[in-house]
Structure formats: structure tokens, C-alpha cells
């Protein structure tokens, strides 16, 4: 093989800029990722998420073992000094994470283009098998507290490390992140299984984050070992052989960048905590179009086996307490009527027995909570499209509003729980109004008498304790106008395909 031309150690402008943006987006990803972890600060390698089966946890409490609790009790609020935005703000943390992901991916593609434009790719891609013995020799040199001789321009160990981070660790992070999307996992149930399941993907995603943090620590340590001023001058100013004065300038620019980065993080955190609605509006405008285009159209094709059913699934949310609901529950919901109205040609009013006479479907699916936990269950009920065929929405109907018995007594003053879904989502396969769970009437803890199942969405979109459904043209004048109680109050997304 002909020898490759030497590469100047100084980096071209494209590499330097993408390096800076990489730092920005990675720090945003890490902090918002910590916020998301706080939603369910436990990691598993099993999709049942049985309490106590977690391999690692980041909380100082555990749940009572013989007392009622819900998954929301397991949340851990992290300090805003660490998490973005901190203080149990899962909704905004997710928005920040997804915006940072988009920025990070854009940076990554730009970086790859810059690498490919000239011979910069040679920095990373070994062109000879001798890279392995050379990497071993470099490792031995480091162990002797010595510095290995420079390569072209990296030594072989540096080259292999950067190669692994960029072309192995980064794709793993992207793929494990995508494996947690209910829309992708619903459409391609085998995809998360590549990693051992949704929870294994979540664990690997976390371990990937730790690998990035570990790489950063080692990277900085070795930059210091190789000459901090020279390294900074190379990545900041693009100089291969900087003078002492140029190194000082590079250090000053790097410190200024670091200060600006800190200011940006503090600003983002303060804005998120003080003006969450504004931040939600801005970030949602960036994230929603991407989600809507790429993930929302996917339809669920999940078919789990009865052997996969989780023995003791987590309940989430506290059941309604008011008199009307209690009386109905005590009577097995006899006398309750499910009302279908709004923009329909034929309003419906159905008892639970009448609902049972309609065409029924049965599905075994993985429930995926926004907090992070999951369970497998069998659901039986009426496909939403069957109800839509009977009530015949008018041409102006675009959404379905689900009203519930849930008065949210534990958080009073914010109205009854409600949810809004897109009409096309209701017509998708496996969109169900379930009245049975695992072969039994739907338990109160899981949403009796009727709950929604949307297998390409996160759990919070699957409204429980349903009272009625209404076809509507717009959701802006309902509640705070964000398409759901949790979107109004907790700044969750209106759609939840990831």
C-alpha cells in the first residue's frame, strides 16, 4: 500500500467548529439525560421491571413492599446543578434531550462530511493492520508514563479509540435511543430485542453515556499529558506548531468558550424552571415536526407471547376517589354509559355490556411508560375504528378528546384528567378501548371501566378511567390547550412516539 501523505496536526475549521458544537450538544444531552433518568431512576435488563430486580439505581428511597404506591412515587428529583432542568421536570428534560439529539446528529453529519472532503478521514481510519501492534506499543509507552511517538498525526491507540467512539459508541447510542421509541418498537418489535429488550436498550444507553463521560475524562487527561497548550492551539486555532503566545491565545479562547457554555446551561436551566411554558413552546416547535413526520405514521405490529406477560405490573396514577366513581366501581360499572359525541353524525351511548357485544380484539403488547419502566400485558376491547365507523365523524373532526373520571385528587385545582389523540392514530391497528386486562375485567388500578391502548405511544397518552369520548376539530381551547392534562401541566409532548 502506498504511504499516506502526512497530516498537519492542526485541525481545519470544520473539525474545530464541529468539535465545539459536539461539546455543546453532548453536555446538553448528558444533563437532560440525567433528568430523564430521574423519571424512573432504576435500570434493568428485564422488561418486567420487577421492583428489586434493577441492577443499578439512582435514588435514595425504595417503595413499600406491602403498601399501595404508584410509579410516580418512584421519581427522583435531581438538582438543577446537574440535571436539565432538574426538579422533576421530565417533560422539559425530554424536549431538551430531543433538541440536543437533533443538534448532535447534525453536527455528526457535518463532521463526517468534513472528514470526507479531504484526507482528514485518515486521522481516524486505520489503513493498515499494523495499527494493532502499534496501539499495543503506545499503550505500553503510556504505562511507562512515557508518551508514544506521534502517528499521522495520532498515535495508533488514539486512532483506534477515536474510531471506536465515533463509529461504534455513537451508533450504539443512537440505536439504543431509538429502540426506546414506542412507535419504532411497535412497528418493529424485533428491533429492541437486538439489544435484549427495551430495558436492556435503556441500560445500554446509560452505559453508553458513561462510556462517553469516561472517554471525555481520559481524553482530557491525555491532552494534558501530550501538552495542553499545544493541543488546545491545534483544536482551537488549527495550528500545528503553535508558539507560546499562540498557545496562550488558544487557552484564553477555550476558557471563554467554557464560560459561554456554562452561561448557556445556566440560562437554559433558569428559563426552563421559571418560564416552562415558553421553553415548551419553543422546543416543541423543533421536535414535533420531526416526530410527526418520522415516527407518528408508524403502526403497531406487536405480538408478544402469553409467557411474556408480566406477573405483577406497575400501576401508575391514583384511581379516582369521588363518590360517583366509587359507587360505579362497587356495582361493577353497571349503570355507567360510555358517551361518544362531538363532531359525529351518530352520537353513541353504550353500557359496558353493549361495548362487549361490539367487535372485539385481543392483543399482547409491551406497555412503555414515559418514566422509563415497562410491562407486557394482554388487552381485550373494542378497536377504536369500530366505534368511529358507528359514530361516523364529520369532515371537520380531526382529534378525539377523552374525558375521564380522574379528578386528579392528589394534585387538586388543575381540572380533571383528559387526553387528546389524532384521529388517524385512532384508526391505526392495535388502537383499542380496553375493558379487559390479562383475561380479567380491567382492574381499577389500571383504568376500569375503560382505558385507551395506543401501542405506538408512551403510556401517558393511554387515558385511563374513561368517562366519554368526543370528536373535536381542535384542542387549543381545551384545558391549557396543549392536548392533554400532562401536556398542560407537566409539559409533556402532545404526541409521544418516542
Amino acid at each position: 500500500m502506498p504511504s499516506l501523505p502526512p497530516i498537519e496536526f492542526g485541525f481545519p475549521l470544520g473539525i474545530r467548529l464541529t468539535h465545539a458544537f459536539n461539546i455543546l450538544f453532548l453536555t446538553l444531552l448528558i444533563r437532560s439525560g440525567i433528568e430523564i433518568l430521574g423519571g424512573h431512576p432504576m435500570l434493568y435488563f428485564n422488561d418486567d421491571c420487577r421492583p428489586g430486580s434493577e441492577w443499578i439505581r439512582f435514588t435514595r428511597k425504595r417503595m413499600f413492599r406491602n403498601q399501595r404506591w404508584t410509579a410516580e412515587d418512584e421519581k427522583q428529583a435531581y438538582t438543577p446543578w446537574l440535571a436539565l432542568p432538574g426538579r422533576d421536570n421530565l417533560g422539559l428534560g425530554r424536549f431538551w434531550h430531543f433538541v440536543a439529539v437533533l443538534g448532535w446528529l447534525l453536527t455528526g453529519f457535518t463532521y463526517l462530511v468534513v472528514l470526507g472532503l479531504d484526507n482528514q478521514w485518515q486521522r481516524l481510519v486505520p489503513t493498515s493492520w499494523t495499527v494493532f501492534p502499534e496501539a499495543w506499543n503506545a499503550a505500553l509507552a503510556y504505562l511507562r508514563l512515557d508518551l508514544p511517538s506521534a502517528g499521522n498525526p495520532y498515535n495508533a491507540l488514539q486512532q483506534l479509540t477515536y474510531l471506536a467512539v465515533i463509529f461504534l459508541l455513537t451508533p450504539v447510542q443512537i440505536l439504543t435511543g431509538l429502540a426506546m421509541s414506542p412507535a419504532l418498537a411497535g412497528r418493529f418489535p424485533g428491533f429492541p430485542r437486538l439489544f435484549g429488550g427495551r430495558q436492556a436498550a435503556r441500560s445500554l444507553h446509560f452505559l453508553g453515556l458513561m462510556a462517553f463521560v469516561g472517554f471525555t475524562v481520559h481524553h482530557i487527561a491525555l491532552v494534558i499529558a501530550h501538552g495542553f497548550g499545544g493541543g488546545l492551539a491545534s483544536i482551537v486555532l488549527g495550528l500545528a506548531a503553535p508558539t507560546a503566545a499562540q498557545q496562550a491565545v488558544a487557552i484564553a479562547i477555550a476558557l471563554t468558550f467554557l464560560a459561554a457554555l456554562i452561561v448557556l446551561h445556566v440560562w437554559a436551566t433558569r428559563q426552563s424552571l421559571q418560564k416552562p411554558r415558553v421553553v415548551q413552546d419553543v422546543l416543541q416547535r423543533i421536535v414535533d415536526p420531526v416526530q410527526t413526520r418520522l415516527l407518528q405514521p408508524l403502526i403497531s405490529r406487536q405480538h408478544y407471547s402469553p409467557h411474556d406477560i408480566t406477573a405483577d405490573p406497575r400501576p401508575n396514577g391514583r384511581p379516582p376517589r369521588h363518590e360517583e366513581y366509587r359507587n360505579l366501581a362497587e356495582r361493577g360499572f353497571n349503570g355507567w354509559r360510555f358517551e361518544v359525541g362531538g363532531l359525529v353524525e351518530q352520537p353513541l351511548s353504550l353500557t359496558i355490556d353493549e361495548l362487549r357485544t361490539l367487535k372485539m380484539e385481543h392483543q399482547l403488547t409491551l406497555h412503555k411508560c414515559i418514566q422509563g419502566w415497562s410491562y407486557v400485558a394482554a388487552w381485550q376491547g373494542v378497536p377504536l375504528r369500530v366505534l368511529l365507523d358507528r359514530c361516523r365523524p364529520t369532515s371537520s373532526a380531526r382529534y378525539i378528546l377523552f374525558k375521564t373520571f380522574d379528578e386528579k385528587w392528589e394534585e387538586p385545582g388543575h381540572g380533571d384528567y383528559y387526553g387528546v389523540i389524532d384521529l388517524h392514530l385512532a384508526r391505526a391497528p392495535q388502537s383499542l378501548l380496553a375493558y379487559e386486562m390479562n383475561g380479567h375485567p380491567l382492574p381499577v388500578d389500571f383504568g376500569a371501566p375503560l382505558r385507551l391502548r395506543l401501542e405506538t405511544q408512551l403510556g401517558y397518552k393511554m387515558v385511563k378511567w374513561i368517562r366519554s369520548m368526543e370528536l373535536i376539530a381542535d384542542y387549543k381551547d381545551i384545558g391549557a390547550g396543549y392536548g392533554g392534562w400532562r401536556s398542560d401541566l407537566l409539559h409533556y409532548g402532545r404526541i409521544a412516539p418516542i
Partner: protein
Amino acid sequence: MTSSNSPFGDSRPWAPPRVGLPVEHCEPWELVKHGARAGLLAGLALGVVEIGASFVLRADPWLPFDFATAIIVGPEALAPAFPLAASLRLGLVIHVLLSLVSGVAFVAILALTFQLTARPWLIMIYGMLFGVTVWEVDFLAVLPVIAPKLTGRLDLATQVWNGILSYCLVYGPTLAAYVIRVRPGMLDRWWRVDESEAT
């Protein structure tokens, strides 16, 4: 974790109550005390291993003391003429101080990341990773800056054993073993199966 003195405001109208039993608490003085003890114990283990390794590999059991002393004094501490007693005293003080600081840092990191109650095998991994990191930061990043003349002075075998392996396999795991045995800050084991709690 949500101090009202924080410069970050919070406009949310409510904070939902959370039920649960605490499994660990973070008492700074207690953690410093246990971190120092863990560091002392791990430093002792590391010192013994390094003296033994230096004796076997270089027939000079006191080399680790000379090296520690050289961080302050400079390369002349490695010269044969340098007084052994001074090297032993100063080297011991530096070694113990660094061990204490690292031990406190290890326990503090565990406490701040809620890992005082982590599974034993996980704490052992933390210990090993912490040991490697201490070696790397101390010897690859800090030493070249504060004492550049000390780098590259040892043969590979001595450096591999006295360096990365003894930190990874002795110092870090000893810190971890102390935490697993004593469990500072732990109030309860979260993975215990126990039905005795009152409802």
C-alpha cells in the same frame, strides 16, 4: 436536593407528594470519616503491595517512598545520596494524604450518585474503575505537569505493577471492600425481600 436558596427559580404550582422509605442518607461528616478510613486502609494495602513489588522487581523496597518524595523534592529524591529516613517520612506523609483524599472522594462520589446502597459487585467495579482513574489522573495528567522530570523513569514491569494494576486491583477494590463491609450512610437494603413492614 431542591434547596430554596438555589438561584434557580421554580414556577410550578405544586410538587406531588412522593411516598417511599429512605435507604441511604448523606451526612457529610460521617462520609468524610468513613472516606478517610477507607482511604487509609486502601493506602496501607497499596503501600504494602508496592513495597513488595519494588523489592521483587527492582530489589529496592523503598523506591515507592522515593518516588512519592520526588513529587515535592524533585528527581534528586531518587538519587542514592538522598537520605532514606527523609524519603520514608516525607513519602509516607504524601502517600497517606493522597490516599485519604482519594478515599474521601470515592465515598463522596458514591454518596452524591446515590450508590452507597449499590449492589456489592457494582461497588467493586466502581472501586476498580476509580483506582484506574486515580492512577491515570495522578500519573498521566497531574505528574507530567507538576514533576515532568519524573515521567519515564521506571521500567515497564515496575510501572505496570506499581501503577495501573496495584491501583486497579488493590487500592480501588480495598476502598470498595470497606464500603461494602461498613456501608456508610446506608439505612436499608433496597433489594432485601422482607414483608415485615407496617402498612
